[in-house]
């Protein structure tokens, strides 16, 4: 957790004093009112990510403030009785969670990174960006909104250290002996949905299987010895530049 929260703190220190004061006050409010549901990183609610800087229901500060006051009827988002000043501070903090500073852009060259991605890195073999590349691995078209530089750098050199549950692979063997490997998309008590190496979307009844293994390691190779430090830095900058809205 610390690895990923550090950039937010660092960013705080770069804010103008008044904005930082507001954001500091907002952080306390966030802990008291928002943390339990939205989490430390502001991404615990599926479909809501404060770090992305984009909120579906509120684009302006005023709209966001109103949303905090009134809640969202029909959802788990309750109204609050925060004052206008408190809401302003909270909005300042939420805006500050959006990475826009140096740590968000990385220190490499994104153009060079793109060349590594598409060439030497062979990333398209498993990943997809804006309609190009394989669908087997996670689509990276919006990865810059979802992950920060340290996380991405770690993923490149030690991909198995943190594998998001949604990116885990499964290895299954049917009762007839057919072996299927793929990225698990969904799973319940009775079924598994996955995308296999031929990019087929398969829904499998567990009662038809004799073996199910959730693979612990990442299917991605480590680039520690395959790319230079500069290439990795550039690649991280390229990945950080990938935001769906662009």
């Amino acid at each position, binding site marked *: *957790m610390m690895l990923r929260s550090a950039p937010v703190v660092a960013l705080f220190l770069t804010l103008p004093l008044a904005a930082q004061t507001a954001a500091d006050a907002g952080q306390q409010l966030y*802990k*008291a*009112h928002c*943390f*339990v549901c939205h*989490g*430390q990183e502001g991404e*615990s*609610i*599926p*479909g809501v990510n404060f770090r992305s800087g984009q909120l579906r229901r509120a684009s302006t500060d005023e709209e966001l403030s109103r949303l905090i006051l*009134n809640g969202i*009827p*029909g*959802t*788990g988002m*309750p*109204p*609050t*009785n*925060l004052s206008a000043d408190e809401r302003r501070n909270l909005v300042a903090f939420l805006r500050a969670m959006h990475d826009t500073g140096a740590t968000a852009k990385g220190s490499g060259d994104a153009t060079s990174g793109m060349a590594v991605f598409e060439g030497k890195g062979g990333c398209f073999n498993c990943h997809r960006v804006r309609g190009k590349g394989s669908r087997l691995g996670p689509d990276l078209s919006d990865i810059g909104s979802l992950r920060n530089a340290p996380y991405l750098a770690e993923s490149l050199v030690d991909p198995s250290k943190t594998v998001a*549950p*949604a990116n*885990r692979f499964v290895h299954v063997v049917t009762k007839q002996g057919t072996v299927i490997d793929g990225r*698990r*998309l*969904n*799973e*319940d*008590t*009775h079924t598994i949905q996955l995308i296999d190496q031929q990019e087929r979307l398969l829904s499998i009844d567990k009662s038809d299987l004799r073996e199910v293994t*959730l693979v*612990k390691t990442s299917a991605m190779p480590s680039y520690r010895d395959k790319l230079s430090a500069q290439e990795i830095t550039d690649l991280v900058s390229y990945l950080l530049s990938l935001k769906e809205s662009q």
Partner: protein
Amino acid sequence: MKKLALLLFPVLLSAQVSFDRLLHTDREPHNWLTYSGSLSGQRYSLLDRITPQNVKNLELKWVFQARSLEKFEATPLVVDGLMYLTEAPNHVFALDAKTGRIFWDYDYHASKDARVCCGSVNRGLAILGDTLFMGTIDGRLIAIDSKSGRPMWNIEVGDPKLGYSVTHAPLVVKDKVIVGVAGGEYGIRGFIAAYDARTGKEVWKFYTVAGPDDPGGKTWDGDSWKNGGSPAWLTGSYDPSLNLIYWGTGNPGPDWNGDDRAGDNLYSDCAVALDADTGKLKWYFQFTPHDEFDYDAVQIPVLVDANWQGRARKLLMWANRNGFFYVLDRETGKFLAGSPYAKINWATGLDEAGRPMRAPNMSPTPAGTLIYPNLFGATNWYSPSYSPRTQLFYIPSWQDSNMTMAKITQKYVPGQRYTGGLPRAANAGRRGTRNTPVEDSAYGSILAMDPRTGQKKWEFKMNDVTDSGVLTTVSDLLFAGGREGYFYALDARTGVELWRASLGGQMEAGPITYSVDGKQYVSIAAGQGLFTFALRE
């Protein structure tokens, strides 16, 4: 005319629901007259048309689609062919229980002052005579004419600006309507209160946080009792032979920081037995003294008359959010037995009096402490069931759940959240639209406990956790669901799956069964719909 008379037949038959009928729900198993199906809280039905042999022939008969996107936590009532149902937050419907078609609806618009910690939900209604009773998310209690849907009276139970709300189905005892309040995350002072069913006038009120001059008042430090929480946000049970109501109370506030409320914090996390006429406390049993984990004892009290160690005894069975299953004597509150039914690390066990023995260094700290079970508990408010036939107690449980609980210092501000903590990184949190569990993820199960031994008789495991209630029937069927959207019929004796339906939305309510014109139905809310099944004809 003959046809018209037949059409009107069910309505003409529907007599007023006297309290005597509520006392003897076993005489009319075709109806579902209270939240738990009876005043004993067993959620057990005497209907026997659906059996382990034919349950595979269940098919969907109708669906009621809610207009609300809020969680659908309601248990319907069924009275002589009519179903009374709420959809969130406070929208009441009268339906034809055979078809799901609507007779009337009453949509109460709650005040914008309403503060609810965990969803603008409603879990159901109570009925007496021709009157329905509904609590509201803005802290009110409303009486509604069951024939027309017109409100009859509407009174304040608690101030919504301070975080008081009523989310559960009221309990009717004699001529009174009894409700407790939610708001344990807003620094309320919790209470249970009884109101005259005809007028809404308050008859008695029992504070679930002892004041400084009350017995138990010394279990709070300084003025901490004023914002001590201890809400009572789920329906209680009633024993007419003792004239006692039983109710579970919630966490002390602030939830995860007990520094300013040294002591046991009575009557938080308790089972309380109250005189039904006066609200006077007969006894209490505290499950989690000085709770720092949000382990509300907000579960349905299940009353069982059974032989206990050689003699007939009036028992109270309780699967608690804190991970222990308890058997108490409900005449006295005496602890008879207790055992864990899930992984626990905050306590090493229970002493002879049933008090938990706290594990060292297992409290929230500023840095955070990993606690089993997590704040959602090993179970929660989801209805358990007890079958007098199998003599097993069925728990919808979360197994192996954990959470890092960190405490913070927080000042009380009226109407604002007052939890004193930052619980995080739960292994059983929301998993989103898609479910991608990993090796140490919590899982859900229906547990069949033998109360006599405290041992698990069987366990039906689900990949995801469950917020579903459990229903058992005289034909030894068990109905329950889970977050994955499957609704199951299990063999209540063995836990073997006999039937399932994929309803596409998680179950966060308790199933019921009823019959109309001799046909047995089973209903459960899932996602945004209420689904009703019956045997294929």
